[in-house]
């Protein structure tokens, strides 16, 4: 029987890449295939995960398969990928261009640069297949010189079914399910996420349409990006919105579900997204989506929400107001998002697509 190794730099519960890795594993396992996960930083205890240095004991035949997840610079992984003799499949999750981090975090600049350099190397290796989270990522891969016949789009597996099943955090529900209208955005607080523009758009909405509103930003506030975080905090202070903008920091699934449940609108003004799982989460929870159509965002949202081709804070503010005051728009967009999720992003659909595409190597 062929062995399939799924390789990723880090595995834990909760982050998007790990969910994709575990989804792939479960899919292969359900087909009675011999699969294992190999990682360098392991934060889960399951026996299916082994240290990357042990991969030589598992991949022994040239017909065995490696599915290599590229989401950041990973020297150890790249070394394995280059030297091992077997079928090699890449799953590309996008690398954020370093430009967004200049002036905020030199660490991030270097990490992103490393990721892009390794992407060029991976593209030049001319491997057997290149899977991409989105059409945008696939175009990037082709632009690096990979043959288009080797490139495919497979959305990442996700945890949304679990998110929909678990109980919410009732403390959050009680606290924020008040008379205020909640506008939600989800994503780690980083310069590529364009939160400054989102705050400006919300300031307009709050100032001209609805004083009784609140912007909730759910996502990790990492100390390494403190320069950016301070910049946002100063901005919020300067426009007197301290009481109306809430940064929750990192939250667990139950808390995340609660923030979705108390929100009327999901807004995203990110400059760069390789897929953006929170958009799909919002659509699956029937929350109307407004987004700036950068990078892969239009691919992900499809016809499930409002995409603005330019980042105009007036458009975003007025769209927020339209969704809040017009129930027809609110329900229609909620349904449209739900349909988009049902048609493209349930794990069942992703599983079929994944098996269909990599089938010839199994």
């Amino acid at each position: 029987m062929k062995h399939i190794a799924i390789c990723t730099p880090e595995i834990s519960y909760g982050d998007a890449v790990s969910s994709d890795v575990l989804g792939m594993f479960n899919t292969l396992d359900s087909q009675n295939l011999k699969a294992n996960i190999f990682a360098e930083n392991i934060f889960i205890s399951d026996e299916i995960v082994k240290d990357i240095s042990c991969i030589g004991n598992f991949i022994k035949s040239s017909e065995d398969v490696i599915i290599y997840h590229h989401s950041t610079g990973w020297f150890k992984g790249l070394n394995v990928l280059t030297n091992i003799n077997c079928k090699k499949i890449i799953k590309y999750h996008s690398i954020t261009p370093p430009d967004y981090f200049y002036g905020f975090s030199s660490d991030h600049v270097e990490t992103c640069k490393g990721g892009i350099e390794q992407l060029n190397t991976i593209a030049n290796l001319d491997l057997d297949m290149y899977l991409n989270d989105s059409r945008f990522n696939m175009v990037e891969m082709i632009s690096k010189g990979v043959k288009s016949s080797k490139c495919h789009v497979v959305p990442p597996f996700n945890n949304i079914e679990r998110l929909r099943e678990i109980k919410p955090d009732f403390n959050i529900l009680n606290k924020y399910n008040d008379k205020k209208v909640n506008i939600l955005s989800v994503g780690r607080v980083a310069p590529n996420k364009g939160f400054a523009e989102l705050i400006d758009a919300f300031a307009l909405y709050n100032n001209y349409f609805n004083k009784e509103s609140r912007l909730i930003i759910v996502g990790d506030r990492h100390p390494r990006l403190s320069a950016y975080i301070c910049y946002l905090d100063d901005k919020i202070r300067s426009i007197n919105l301290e009481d109306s903008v809430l940064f929750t920091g990192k939250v667990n699934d139950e808390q995340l579900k609660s923030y979705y449940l108390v929100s009327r609108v999901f807004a995203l003004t990110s400059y760069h997204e390789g897929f953006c799982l929170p958009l799909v989460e919002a659509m699956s929870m029937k929350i109307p989506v407004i987004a700036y159509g950068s990078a892969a965002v239009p691919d992900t949202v499809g016809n499930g929400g409002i995409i603005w081709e330019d980042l105009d804070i007036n458009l975003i503010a007025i769209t927020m107001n339209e969704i809040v005051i017009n129930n027809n728009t609110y329900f229609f967009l909620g349904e449209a998002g739900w349909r988009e999720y049902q048609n493209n992003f349930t794990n069942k659909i992703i599983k079929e697509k994944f098996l269909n595409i990599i089938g010839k190597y199994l």
Partner: protein
Amino acid sequence: MVKSEDSKNYIEDLKKRIRKKVMTDQESKNIDNSIKRRYDPSSIILPTEDDFYSNINKAEQNADIGVTVPSFNKLFLLKRIIYRWITKFLFKILKVITINQRNFNLSVLDTFRSGIDDHNNLKLRFAETKTQFDTRIIELKIKQEQQDIEISKLNNMINYLKNSLVQLEQRTDNISEDTGKGVKKIDKRKLKDLKDEVNHNLDSFYVFLEDNLRGSSDEIKKRLHVYLPVIKKANVGLKDSPILDIGCGRGEWLELLKDAGLYAKGLDFNRVMIEICKKQGLNAVEGEALSFLKGLPSSSLGAVTGFHFIEHYGFEFLVELLKEILRVLKSGGLVILETPNPSNILVGSCNFYVDPTHNKPLPSPLIKLVLESRGFSKVKIMCLNPYEDDFKIKENGSETSKRFNDYFYGPQDYAVVGYKI
């Protein structure tokens, strides 16, 4: 059900309406122009240096009037001579009239040219300064990191002193109270209290050791994360299957469990540790493990955990402890015990003895066997916390170096996990 085509059309209509609102509606007119703006970084194209120079060269060609007289080649000879003569004459007049303008044009161009040169010089100087600045920032960062380490050490020392002071104050209060009551002879109860008190003499010191040797609370929490899936999989930590953490220390595990919405209680003999837990709002009590467990009803807990606890005691104690743990666990409940891994040579020969309260190293096969013999099932060993790669020697495919790395830099801890059927 909304069809895809419907939503596409609906969304397009909606977008048109909103754009119209932004452009013409009263609502958008109300919006303060000072914050009304469009933002599209990709649309801004800055001219390059070459663009500047070629534009100036072009302008220079047109700056002077009548430098070349048209040849009028298409005209007949006489006509051409007349035209050229008239043109020359007109140019002479124009030159007189526009002399100031031409001088102005040329001086403006000169100014531009020198402006661009200055700009380039400034750019170079700026780049140099930026490099110096970046280097300085890196130096400062390194210095700050060093200072942070020093400050953290000092903070640990201050905490140690504070804790010792609080303990001393409590004792002084007790003595004053006794003196006030005029204690004449020490009864048995008093004697036991005094003995207990002696056992707590080093409480603050152990906290100090933990702060300095075991690692920061954040590091410990990161390491303990690995157990959360095990707990979740066993479906314990609910109201009717709470978790007891023996030797809970500073409460890192209790905090993780609390954040995960699980019910847990901590137990520690060290009063200062208990105070630390309580300050964080964690459920922790002071007590000795064996007698505490003996006081619990059978089948009342979902899990019992102990991190770096069992190596502090002798073998008989461990056997007795496991017997009690098995008794108090519910069916399907589990025990997790983490301890230093003596099969790592550095740990077994040296690091284990850094803590003076450690008893004997406990090899994992022995502990696994003890759990199995005490009635636990599905007993497994989790190897944890290997050294960072930076410590390891380069393997280069050699078996010797691989073994060396395994023995010296392999997992520093292990955990034994066993279930009650």
